[in-house]
């Protein structure tokens, strides 16, 4: 079948998204084409709305539609402890754990000179200023355990040395509900090193 210009354009737009190849884009495009006009309009509005209303929180740099964001406004959260994360989606992961009641700081990436991302391209200066002016007692560096994530944490730890009492790192360990037999040897190694007293 000969493709029509408008459909081609939609396919091209959809394939800009991560994880969407030409075939999936085509399937999605045809799916959209056969949806009701109302649903399509809702979808299009949602796309525009997200772009127009979502901004970076001026305090924690998480994404929000109010300034400052709900997490920074929440008076029941502790101002003693700060959790530093790479991406806004990581905030959701930590929140889901329900174990953390402090404040957040989102860096928007990790240091990777290969991709031309240096410390200046992340919200690191803002983090240092926040520590200097705030009353935090502990900073948890919860970046990913990749080379870039580790480097980012180590870099921040150097900058914050002497400015805050306690700097910590997330532990590596065994997944809950997993059996030892199936854990890979690296994770098991880390879990052994980071073992706790009974």
């Amino acid at each position: 079948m000969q493709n029509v210009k408008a459909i081609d354009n939609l396919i091209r737009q959809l394939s800009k998204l991560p994880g969407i190849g030409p075939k999936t884009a085509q399937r999605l495009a045809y799916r959209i084409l056969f949806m009701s006009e109302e649903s399509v309009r809702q979808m299009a509005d949602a796309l525009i709305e997200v772009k127009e209303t979502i901004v970076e929180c001026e305090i924690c740099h998480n994404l929000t539609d109010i300034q400052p964001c709900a997490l920074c406004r929440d008076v029941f959260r502790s101002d003693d402890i700060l959790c530093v994360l790479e991406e806004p989606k990581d905030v959701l992961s930590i929140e889901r754990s329900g174990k953390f009641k402090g404040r957040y700081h989102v860096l928007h990436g990790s240091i990777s000179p290969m991709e031309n991302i240096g410390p200046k391209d992340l919200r690191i200066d803002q983090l240092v200023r926040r520590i200097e002016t705030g009353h935090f007692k502990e900073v948890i560096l919860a970046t990913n355990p990749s080379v870039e994530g580790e480097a980012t944490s180590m870099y921040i730890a150097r900058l914050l040395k002497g400015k805050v009492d306690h700097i910590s790192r997330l532990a590596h360990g065994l997944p809950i509900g997993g059996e030892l037999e199936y854990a890979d040897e690296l994770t098991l190694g880390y879990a052994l090193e980071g073992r706790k007293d009974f």
Partner: protein
Amino acid sequence: MRLERIYLQNFTNYASQDCMFGENINVFQGENAQGKSNFLDAIYYLSRACSYRHNKDKELMRWEQPYFRIKAIVSQKNEKHTITLTYHEGKKTVLLDETPLQSLDQLAGTFLTVIFSPEDLALVKGSPDHRRKFLDDELIQTDRQYARELYRYKKIIQQRNHVLKTMRQRYEEDDLLQVYDDQLAVCGLFILQRRLAILDKLNPLAAKAHDQLTDGKEKLSLRYLCNLPGDVCGLTEKDYLKALQERRQEDVNRGYSTLGPHRDDLELTIDGHSAKTYGSQGQQRTVALSLKMAEADYIQFHEGEYPVLLLDDVLSELDGTRRESLLRLVNQNIQTFITCTDAEDMRSQTLHFEEFIIKDGKII
């Protein structure tokens, strides 16, 4: 380990080929460009899900065919397994005993091979990266932590080199460089220690193999050449960091990392003289072969069973005595696949082998 049966479909110049093999020596005989090495490549592909002759899987498909498949029955410690590898539309899938594997790494260790081909002369004659790769390949196959740390090490070096380049051109990033130095010292030391440990095991094995191949006439020795200063065995993270610190200005000037295991080498000597500089072509080839035999012995030591040995066009390069020693060596419980243009050389031996004649993508 044994390869009992293989079935190829659309693999290189084989349209459809089913074949069963003998327990010991199997010889593929045929003229040039008939598909002897392709057959070895298929066996190699079963062990690593990649080719030793082609970089792209696409190139392994028979002309104008949409897919290729290799199916085999292998035995590991007398337990039989079937491996099915399919390449279709740019995707590789593996079935082990008819069950799909989530990732190709899970195939590791099911079927191990050691290959020796004419290109392996580069192990002796070529640049240091060939020799580093030889050590790394051994370690990657038998030590998953090493595989992960080596990947991390290469990543850190890449990131560090980018910082060094920008430092030369634009701004000062001393703090960031220090972070990569801290990472390197931990990761690099790990790499170094594992390489030294495996070399300790490979050295006597290579010396033994070389002694047998040369009828006791030559003594082969392997030594790790580390570019970090001081005694490599007692090296600590602190020493490593100090060395990086001392070398920093030079690294900045050059714009890349000049220190660490990514620049190390392996020295191969015959009776105390460098095989690379003073060895004859035949001696160099024998040294490379000894290294490969040491690899097979190491796997036997580590896995409790010999890997399958693949010898691509080796016999024609060796003199009669060395050829005889090699065949005697492999004839001890190692399943071996040999390609040659003429099996006459082997017939003079008093050993038993299965013979397959290959012509134009078919075994006849």
